[in-house]
């Protein structure tokens, strides 16, 4: 089976900034791929290169089997949802959805049917006659989704589609986008800087940084098994500890002691997810530490811990069930232990 989208060694530079740096990636048919990264990492540029709104300086872009590198956006089999919706303000909701059909010369009855079907799919039938400024942000975004899907594109592109919405609408709409995408089965590339959004919605997540892809994997793997220092840092809110290498091993007092990574030159960076920091009582063994402050998150609580290792004050965050946290006052003495398989080490 061939790939749905294939980028081969694509570069794009804006002035001094390498937005895309010799980047290659394949997207499989029907899958939803999230491009995840901080602002300025090149993820939107990548999306725009696929859309044809941006020409790459080097490299090739394929959609299906077709090389579309030099093909203008209007001749590519794509639909796109923009960050701020980009609904045409002089057209109603229904007319916006209809626009891509009209410009393709689709017959009136066929277009009518398709528009009705799509408005039903995104539950906007009752808003069909309204203008964009008369509908809510969530409705505007669903309209943009319907417009993008109207011509049955091979590829659906979404550029931070939820960033302008408030938290509650965002979660609901995120699930709705996923549902719609699965029901129509369109290959989708979804750009976001929000890791929880990416992990929740994607079949695969591509973590991007400085115009390069750091890791492409299923959400669980990206979260549990980051393959680069950047994705380990960017995803999961991990503890970052800069530790010395002694005799080929890296340790944090009595908390853990693991083999140093290949290529570590005297120092290594250890990344540990807060939920992997296991607390014990003062006599349980492990590294002694004290609770310095806490942040309550509902079911769980994050505890800030201070430990003294080799004369250095080390800060560490642990995530524990809130009912465990309530038993520990601030200044409480605890011990800290991390299973070796939960310590991700990277050379500095």
């Amino acid at each position: 089976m061939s790939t749905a989208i294939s980028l081969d060694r694509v570069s794009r530079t804006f002035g001094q900034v390498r937005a895309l740096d010799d980047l290659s990636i394949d997207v499989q048919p029907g899958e939803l791929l999230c491009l995840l990264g901080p602002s300025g990492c090149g993820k939107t540029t990548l999306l725009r290169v696929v859309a044809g709104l941006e020409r790459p300086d080097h490299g090739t872009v394929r959609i299906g089997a077709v090389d579309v590198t030099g093909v203008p956006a209007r001749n590519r089999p794509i639909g796109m949802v923009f960050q701020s919706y980009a609904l045409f303000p002089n057209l109603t909701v229904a007319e916006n959805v209809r626009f891509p059909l009209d410009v393709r010369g689709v017959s009136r009855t066929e277009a009518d049917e398709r528009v009705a079907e799509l408005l039903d799919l995104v539950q906007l039938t009752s808003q069909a006659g309204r203008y964009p400024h008369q509908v809510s942000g969530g409705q505007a975004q669903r309209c943009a989704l319907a417009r993008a899907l109207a011509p049955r594109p091979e590829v659906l592109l979404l550029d931070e589609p939820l960033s302008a919405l408030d938290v509650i609408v965002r979660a609901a709409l995120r699930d709705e986008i996923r549902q719609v995408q699965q029901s129509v089965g369109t290959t989708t590339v979804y750009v976001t800087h929000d890791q929880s959004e990416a992990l929740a919605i994607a079949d695969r997540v591509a973590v991007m940084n400085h115009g390069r892809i750091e890791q492409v994997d299923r959400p669980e793997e990206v979260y549990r098994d980051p393959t680069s220092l950047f994705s380990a840092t960017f995803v999961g809110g991990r503890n970052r500890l800069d530790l010395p290498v002694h005799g080929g091993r890296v340790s944090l007092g009595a908390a853990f002691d693991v083999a140093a990574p290949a290529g570590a030159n005297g120092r290594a960076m250890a990344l540990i997810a807060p939920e992997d920091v296991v607390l014990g009582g003062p006599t349980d063994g492990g590294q002694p530490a004290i609770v310095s402050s806490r942040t309550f998150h509902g079911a769980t609580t994050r505890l800030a811990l201070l430990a003294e290792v080799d004369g250095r004050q080390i800060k560490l965050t642990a995530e524990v069930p809130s009912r465990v946290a309530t038993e520990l006052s601030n200044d409480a003495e605890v011990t800290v232990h991390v299973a070796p398989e939960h310590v991700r080490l990277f050379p500095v």
Partner: protein
Amino acid sequence: MGRALSGWLGALLLLAVVGLFLVAPIAVMLMRSFITADGFTLDVWSGLLDSPQVRKALLTSIALGATCAAASTLIGTPLAWLTSRLAARPRAAWLGIFNVAAHFGGIGLAFAYVITFGVFGVVTLLLHGVGIDFQPPARDSFAALAITYEYANVPLFVLLLLPAMGIVRDEWSEAAQVASATRWQFWRRIGLPLLAPFIAGGALLSFTWAIGIYGIAYALAGTSPAAPTRLLTLQIGQTIADDAVTGTARAGALSVLLIALALAALATYRLMVRRGLRWFGGHAPSEASTTSASAIRRPSGGGNWLRRGLFVAVGSLLGLPLAAIGLYSVATRWATGVLPEGYTLNTWLTTWADDRAVQAVLTSLSLSTLTTLVVLVLVVPAVYWARTVNPRVRAALEIAAAIPFALPFLVIGLAMLQFSGMVAPGLQGTYPLLLAGYVAITFPFVYWAVDGAMAAAGVERLSQAAEACGARRRQIILRVVLPNIRAGLASGALLAFATVMGEYALVSVLASSIQTIPVWSVHLLLQRGGDPGYAPLAVVTLSVFSLLLVLALVVSRLTRGRAVREAAFVEDA
């Protein structure tokens, strides 16, 4: 009563000046066209419209206005679009150029026409030199007036339309591309329908502006009865000149025709703007969201050379008369041949030794500076008051600002002349009256600029924050408000300054004994026959234009090339 008054305190002075020198005179002029010694009558009107001369002038004026509006729309719309999509620096430069051309225009343009297309004009000589028998349109012809008007009218149209261009977001064009629309489909279905009300409104205002121009027409055509192009404004000017006593009354009635045209245009314009904003819930979308991406992402592909070509063409069209004037000012003799017979700096030296020229320059500089300072002192507290204390002040200011925006300065001048004759004849012909007149007609430029700057800076919230920090009102204004609206102050001041530097109609009606640059220039231009001795005119025009251009470039660098709100977005229209 005391409380009602205190709500208006900060704006009282400005409103008093505007009421006394703008609103009252216009109101009286309107009334007097219906009410004579015999009571209410339509006689004045029917008498006017029966006169074949007036009818012809009216028709010619309308034809000229329509020609100019059509040309401005055709040239100005793409120009405004491309200008709005330029990177910040070139946009700032072009805005500076447009501002000077639009507001200083006037007599300088009339002179430029003569130098460029006159019998001994540069283009004429150039074409003769390469063997083409070019007969330029006579300076008092319809074509000459239309060409000259366009030099001020197109930039004005661009400035007016520029803020509206911000409503078309680049994302829409991209969304259309992604939806498989061609460029043309995008413009036909999205871009033009969105802009149409603003373009139509701009065309309408171009039309009224062209009809209301007096200075250029007078400098080119004079008022000799033999002149082929009779215009309404020339008719008014001549009626005043013919008979100082009864002439003013008849000229007043003629002016009411212009007022009626202008008010109709303004009302339609506001309707248009409101229509244009209906797709945005009645409010102008904030500019910040519209141009963010365009600064970084230059459109790739074919449009670029087209854009460059257009700007080069516009630049050379604007630069041609300037180059002609410059060449003329250093020519020894220049009656045949493509280039002058010799070059000399003599004219530059003699001009600055000529008492009358130097006097005119000094008079204009001091009058412009004084006007600008007075306007700033009046407007800033008024706008601050309107924004922080009493929003109703703003409504009053908006309406007042619309008057000089829509009405020809000639009509305003005439109304002031009539009104001062009624209440204070001693003031007529004096410097203080002229100054007050200039304050009244230029305050809108400063008002819009300052109001826009205060809105952009969020002066209300800044003031509250400063107050919460314990600052007193004086400290708030000096240390918080003024530093944050510098760019607005500068651009408003520039427009007021440039307008007074180039204004002819008002001074010629109110105090023609005060020899400003335009008065002095027209005097020289209308000396027909023999060697007209235009050389000092070339030196002065070029010097003033350069001064204004430098100021404008500095100012638009300060505003980072953002269009000052030119009343196009009367948000609460």
